[in-house]
């Protein structure tokens, strides 16, 4: 057990402590633990030393799955939809495939955002422990959103020339919206006139400056009561003329750098001439935008996180920084701010360094693999994963293992199991094998669920599972004395022995009560009756029964003769069948031809051994046959 990160869970039980424990698996995330001490056939046959310590209990220990919390249900369902769409797109490989992938990334993020908003609403309503849980979720998914967004910029989005600063600023603005909100309030006009007298005026101006919101800064400055003074006008001029780099602005990096340097020198000379010294905040701002170390030290405490500082600092000092250069700058910001690295910080740094470590860090997030599965799947399709692995095959294996685990986790849940199957479908071939193991274990509490399990099994060609589920449902119906239903399930299970067994039950019921149960079902049997010989007999018998009821005696007689001649009649049914025959033989109208009667006689003779139990019936039937034969022969001699 080399890894110190192992989690240990203690069972609070004296007997466990003194005797020892053993465990057996229950479902996917549960284990049953009980006090255990090995004794065997050679131990003394006497009560153990632990009998005094009763009670002995079984403890069910569960690995908590955050995703099973009802509040995250939407996240789980909607992200599955995106995942499946993504797989379809990837299979078809359209030409604008990369663009699609970026859209999927945005979709995933918007699902996270929606969940976060929902969580924030709910946390206000919650109390006690539930509140704590929700707060914990918010922390988790806030990190997830933040990391995902950065990964999207670094690995998924196709940024020309890898010049990322604009995207980084957007990312920071999105996650630290405080100054933007304040600025919007200040500019809304509700407190116009004495803006600079507000305590947070300069804080907001500088905050906006750090986030690269130059236009907002200028708007705020223009609201200052001294806006028309020379130094304010000059500052505005400098901000306005600040060159910004954009690929689509038709300026090359070299040309931009030239302009940028020129602007820097110009601004620096104005600072050096102490043109802004009368307004210390304005002076600070100007020193910031030319990247003066002292000035940055003054404001860095205004940044909540190192990456907020990083984006700001790069914007003013390295505006053409490439995405793959971020790591080194990030480290400088971290040491500058003296940040104590939390998990989120480590992941973000790993992402900026383009380090494979990021996969490990993301796996350690406590949302049971939702994040790592979906992000790694996306990165795999962006061909990013293989850059971290030795080859493409390894990266595929890695992606599979995440999807597989996630699918397994969901498949073990009583209502999310179908979602799990959808994930497992996308990790061939182990996925199908796992489905084969997990699907039959889905606890079935009603028939509609049974139908769903069968449907999922058939969709994947796992007919043996469908059959076994149907058989179990059939047995359940039988136990509840719902014979018709049991027969329907038996037919679905394609278990001919079971179908025969049920057909016998139907026939026995008829023998006992004279009523054939579930006639509706029997009339629709059709070709299904081929499932077993006994079922064919039941079906045919039902047809006879119906003809007889409808008073179509001639046809009924024919059906009966063929039933008797068939070899399918169960022993217990002979007397019933022969009694029915007797009524037809003795009918006023001549129903059976001499041929029919001979057949009947043959059948009776062949089965004499069964008939010995029917002492009373035998002479009667023989008499009936003889009488009918004479009538038939006479009739046939006369008319043919």
């Amino acid at each position, binding site marked *: *057990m080399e890894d110190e990160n*192992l*989690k*240990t*869970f*203690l*069972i*609070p039980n*004296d007997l*466990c*402590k003194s005797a*020892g*424990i*053993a*465990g*057996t*698996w*229950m*479902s*996917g995330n549960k284990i*049953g*633990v*009980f*006090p*255990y001490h*090995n*004794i*065997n*056939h050679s131990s003394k*046959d006497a*009560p*153990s030393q*632990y*009998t005094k310590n*009763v*009670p*002995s*209990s*079984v*403890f*069910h*220990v*569960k*690995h908590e799955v955050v995703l099973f919390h009802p509040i995250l249900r939407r996240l789980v369902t909607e992200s599955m939809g995106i995942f499946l769409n993504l797989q379809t797109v990837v299979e078809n490989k359209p030409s604008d495939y990369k663009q699609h992938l970026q859209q999927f990334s945005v979709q995933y993020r918007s699902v996270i955002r929606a969940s976060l908003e929902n969580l924030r609403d709910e946390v206000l309503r919650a109390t006690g422990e539930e509140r704590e849980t929700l707060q914990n979720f918010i922390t988790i998914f806030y990190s997830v959103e933040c990391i995902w967004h950065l990964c999207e910029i670094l690995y998924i989005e196709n940024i020309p020339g890898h010049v990322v600063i604009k995207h980084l600023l957007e990312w920071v603005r999105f996650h630290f919206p405080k100054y933007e909100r304040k600025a919007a309030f200040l500019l809304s006009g509700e407190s116009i006139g004495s803006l600079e007298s507000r305590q947070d005026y300069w804080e907001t101006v500088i905050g906006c400056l750090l986030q690269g919101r130059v236009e907002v800064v200028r708007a705020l400055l223009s609201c200052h009561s001294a806006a028309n003074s020379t130094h304010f006008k000059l500052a505005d001029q400098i901000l306005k003329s600040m060159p910004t780099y954009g690929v689509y602005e038709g300026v090359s990096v070299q040309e931009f750098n030239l302009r940028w340097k020129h602007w820097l020198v110009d601004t620096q000379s104005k600072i050096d001439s102490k043109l802004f010294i009368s307004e210390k905040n304005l002076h600070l701002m100007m020193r910031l935008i030319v990247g003066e170390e002292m000035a940055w030290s003054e404001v860095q405490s205004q940044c909540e996180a190192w990456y907020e500082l990083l984006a700001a600092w790069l914007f003013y000092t390295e505006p053409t920084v490439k995405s793959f250069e971020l790591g080194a700058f990030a480290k400088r910001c971290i040491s500058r701010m003296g940040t104590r690295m939390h998990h989120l910080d480590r992941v973000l740094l790993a992402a900026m360094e383009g380090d494979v470590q990021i996969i490990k860090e993301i796996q350690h997030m*406590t949302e049971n693999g939702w994040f790592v599965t979906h992000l790694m799947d996306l990165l795999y399709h962006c061909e990013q994963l293989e850059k971290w692995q030795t080859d493409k095959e*390894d990266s595929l294996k890695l992606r599979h*293992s995440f999807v597989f685990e996630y699918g397994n986790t969901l498949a*073990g849940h009583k209502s999310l199991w179908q979602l799990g199957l959808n994930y497992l479908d996308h990790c061939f071939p*182990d996925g199908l*094998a*796992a489905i084969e*193991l*997990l699907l039959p*274990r889905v*606890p079935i509490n009603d028939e509609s669920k049974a139908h769903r399990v069968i449907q999922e099994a058939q969709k994947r060609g796992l007919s043996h599972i469908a059959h*076994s589920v149907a058989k*179990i449902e059939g*047995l359940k119906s039988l*136990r509840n004395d719902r014979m018709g239903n049991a027969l329907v399930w038996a037919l679905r299970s394609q278990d001919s*022995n079971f179908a025969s067994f049920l057909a016998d039950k139907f026939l026995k019921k008829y023998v006992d009560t004279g009523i054939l149960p579930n006639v509706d079902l029997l009339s629709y049997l059709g070709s299904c009756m081929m499932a077993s010989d006994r079922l064919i007999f039941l079906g045919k018998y039902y047809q006879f029964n119906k003809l007889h009821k409808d008073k179509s005696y001639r046809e009924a007689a024919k059906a009966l003769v063929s039933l008797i001649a068939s070899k399918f009649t169960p022993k217990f049914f002979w007397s019933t069948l022969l009694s029915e025959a007797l009524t037809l033989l003795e009918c006023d109208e001549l129903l059976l031809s001499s041929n029919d009667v001979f057949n009947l006689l043959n059948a009776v003779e062949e089965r004499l051994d069964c008939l010995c139990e029917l002492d009373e019936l035998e002479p009667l039937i023989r008499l009936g046959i003889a009488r009918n034969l004479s009538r038939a022969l006479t009739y046939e001699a006369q008319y043919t």
Partner: protein
Amino acid sequence: MTSLLNSIDTGHEDMIHDAEVDYYGLRLATCSSDHSVKVYDIKNGAHNLIDDLKGHFGPVWQIAWSHPMFGNLLASCSYDRKVIIWKETQGKWSKYYEYANHDSSVNSVQFAPAEFGLILACGSSDGSISILTYQSETNNWDAKKIQNAHTIGCNAVSWCPAITPEPAFDSNHVGPMQKRLVSGGCDNLVKIWKEEDDKWVEEKKLEVHSDWVRDVAWAPSVGLSRHTVASCSQDRRVVIWTSEDCQSWSSNILQTFDDVVWNVSWSLNGNILAVSGGDNKISLWKQNLDGAWKCISDVTKGQATNNEQRAL
């Protein structure tokens, strides 16, 4: 994060030897030195005693649930040399079949995969393994015995999952599924058995353990035709055996533990192995992408009842 879902006071008057949930995880059965087997309803986190089964006259070592396709059956084996199969009808459990053809304590019972039918394997201290097959035509159980499976005694049996053999050349000709068993015993051996022409024969003898083999478990199959078996022994080692064809097996020693290892148990889809032993710990093991086995978490005893459980 791990949490205690519930604790069930079994009311057994002595040590529990086995606690197994049924196919769907809705019922729990326990067996104990107090000669009884108890069945609980554990649906929705509740736990209600359904029945207390009395029929054995010695400690009951192990229990096994049948596949629901065969109704609700429970098998138990005991020091009293008997194997009892219990059946539930209308919520009541009763003795369905009793098998008393062993000459010593019966240590292990396991139902075969449902694909093979209703079959039970029993391993006994008399060294033999019995295979009981239910015959639906006669409503009776047919017993086959592997005599002298393990000298001094057989401690554990476990079935190989039902795998349809890959059709080698002709895809229309799929051979019948092969029934296989693994057993572990006091001769320090792990043995693989297969059914051949209605007889059970030894297919392979696996030698690594240096002391009595205490438990064996054939992993549920994920992946097409790869077999994985875990065995544990009084030599304090757990061995993972793997094979493609059941002929050649390679062994991988998980770890040498601090104490005797009594039990190994695979999760439903065979991806996590739970190991418990004399060190009073249950540890969970999982194979990583490189094929190495890593411990992922421990479950261990608590100091005393007044201590809160802690997740570290």
